[in-house]
């Protein structure tokens, strides 16, 4: 039934060159897309703004998006206001906060967890403010990103005002190492492998991973425009089903090492190879590792508590002045029922037990 009713079979899906784009690669390389009757081309994009614009104007059919992006689109907070939706969380967790060698030393090499690192940073900021020194600069990847909100959350819980005590800016992941070593930024909250890459290159140290702040936070989603989803319901479900299968496959023992090899072979990420492999390692002894979740239990479902948390963060940092009908906004952005339908179609790989 599923293959026969798909009107649109050839799809272009946009993605950014990051470790957590790996479910898309897996679905293509292991023929999960083909198995659902689709012929998919992956299009590697350079920025989140670019991927959003290409999705909004129909140059690509679907895209890996930062989880808050469909909500921002539906609120009009992205100034584009083309309605978007998701029926699939592609990954959870994965970001870390890294500081420069110089700041790490000033912080007296704190214990690598949020509270100790936060206290250490606040002491540095208070000392430097008293001495009339300029504010420290921290980077994240996009205004509507978990990176931005989790960085703010950590600063806030550490008694640091994200707007007054530090400067927050956006730097593309491929540029963070260069900017950190040149002293243009003092730290950043960016996804794997860019935290560990700083340690391997000797330009910085990770001080915490974001799963220590909000465990299991939705990170990337598969986004489509509302119009596209309405016109292509069968292709949408097939695409989500294929990626659910890829996510489940990634949770089975030994598979992440194979997936890491796919990423390395695709030469997408210009970071040290060992940091790419480590990002997808099964070995969870590295507490600062990304701890990606791709498909255990119900984690691929676009849970509404994530959506509500994102909307709260947008309001907290004044990205939207709207007081939206929260339930309506969340329902139309994070499509639980579609996910359930696609989940029933994902039969080629069995679901693993929840962790």
């Amino acid at each position: 039934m599923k293959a026969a009713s798909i009107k649109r079979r050839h799809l272009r899906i946009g993605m950014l060159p990051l470790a957590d784009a790996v479910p898309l690669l897996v679905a293509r390389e292991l023929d999960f897309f083909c198995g659902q009757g689709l012929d998919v081309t992956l299009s590697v994009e350079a920025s989140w703004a670019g991927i959003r614009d290409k999705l909004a104007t129909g140059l690509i059919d679907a895209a890996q998006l930062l989880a808050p992006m469909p909500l921002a689109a539906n609120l009009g907070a992205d100034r584009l206001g083309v309605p978007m939706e998701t029926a699939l969380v592609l990954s959870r967790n994965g970001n870390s906060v890294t500081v420069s060698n110089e700041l790490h030393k000033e912080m007296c090499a704190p214990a690598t967890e949020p509270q100790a690192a936060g206290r250490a940073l606040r002491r540095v900021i208070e000392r430097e403010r008293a001495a009339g020194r300029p504010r420290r600069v921290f980077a994240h990847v996009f205004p509507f990103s978990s990176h931005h909100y989790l960085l703010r959350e950590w600063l806030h819980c550490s008694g640091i005002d994200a707007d007054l005590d530090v400067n927050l800016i956006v730097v593309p992941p491929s540029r963070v190492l260069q900017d950190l070593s040149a002293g243009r930024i003092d730290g950043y909250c960016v996804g794997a492998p860019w935290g560990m890459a700083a340690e391997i290159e000797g330009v910085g140290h990770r001080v915490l991973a974001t799963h220590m702040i909000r465990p299991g936070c939705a990170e990337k989603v598969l986004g489509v425009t509302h119009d596209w989803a309405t016109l292509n319901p069968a292709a949408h479900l097939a695409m989500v089903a294929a990626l659910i299968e890829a996510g489940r496959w990634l949770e089975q023992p030994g598979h992440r090492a194979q997936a890491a090899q796919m990423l390395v072979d695709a030469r997408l990420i210009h970071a040290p190879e060992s940091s790419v492999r480590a990002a997808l390692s099964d070995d969870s002894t590295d507490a600062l590792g990304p701890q990606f979740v791709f498909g255990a239990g119900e984690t691929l479902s676009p849970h509404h508590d994530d959506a509500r948390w994102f909307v709260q963060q947008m309001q907290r940092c004044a990205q939207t002045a709207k007081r939206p009908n929260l339930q309506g906004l969340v329902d139309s952005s994070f499509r639980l029922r579609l996910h359930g339908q696609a989940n029933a179609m994902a039969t080629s790989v069995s679901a693993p037990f929840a962790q």
Partner: protein
Amino acid sequence: MRVMLIDDDRDRVLMVEEALQAGGHEVIGRFRDTDNIISAVDALQPDIVLIDVDSPNRDTLEYLGQISRDRPRPIVLFAQTSGSETIRRAMRAGVSAYVVDGLSADRLQPVIEVAIARFQESQGLKQELAKAKTKLADRRDVERAKGLLMQRKGVDENTAHETLRRMAMDRNIRLGEVARSLIAASELL
């Protein structure tokens, strides 16, 4: 209007700049993708930033637009100020525009149109150049492959050419590619 350009393609930057100046606009800065965009925007305060669609720096510009409350900063030009067809054409041509809040659409439109036209032109030129280069390489390699066939098989030029042509048709590839694979194979032996 005060325009800032961010693009790694030097020829294209020159074309866009000339056309904008002819239209009475001022190009206040040209930057490469690796430059520090934040300090450039801070220092120059442009009315509009034209940037390569596939520049990673677009995310940085997007953020500057988000924090535009205290002073004029670029914001994204989107569907509300211009028809989405213009946006689509701009994206296809490879140009994105970021503008200061409050600029009217009719003042922007000509600048954007100039950029779209010039970006398209540069793409066309590049494709033509690539085509011309391939043609030259094809001719050279076909001559070499013919020479090889004549030498190895002891056939005349016409027969060598016919052999190559048939190989290309059988495999459904260009004559130049057949020639190159033949040359590569003979280098192995």
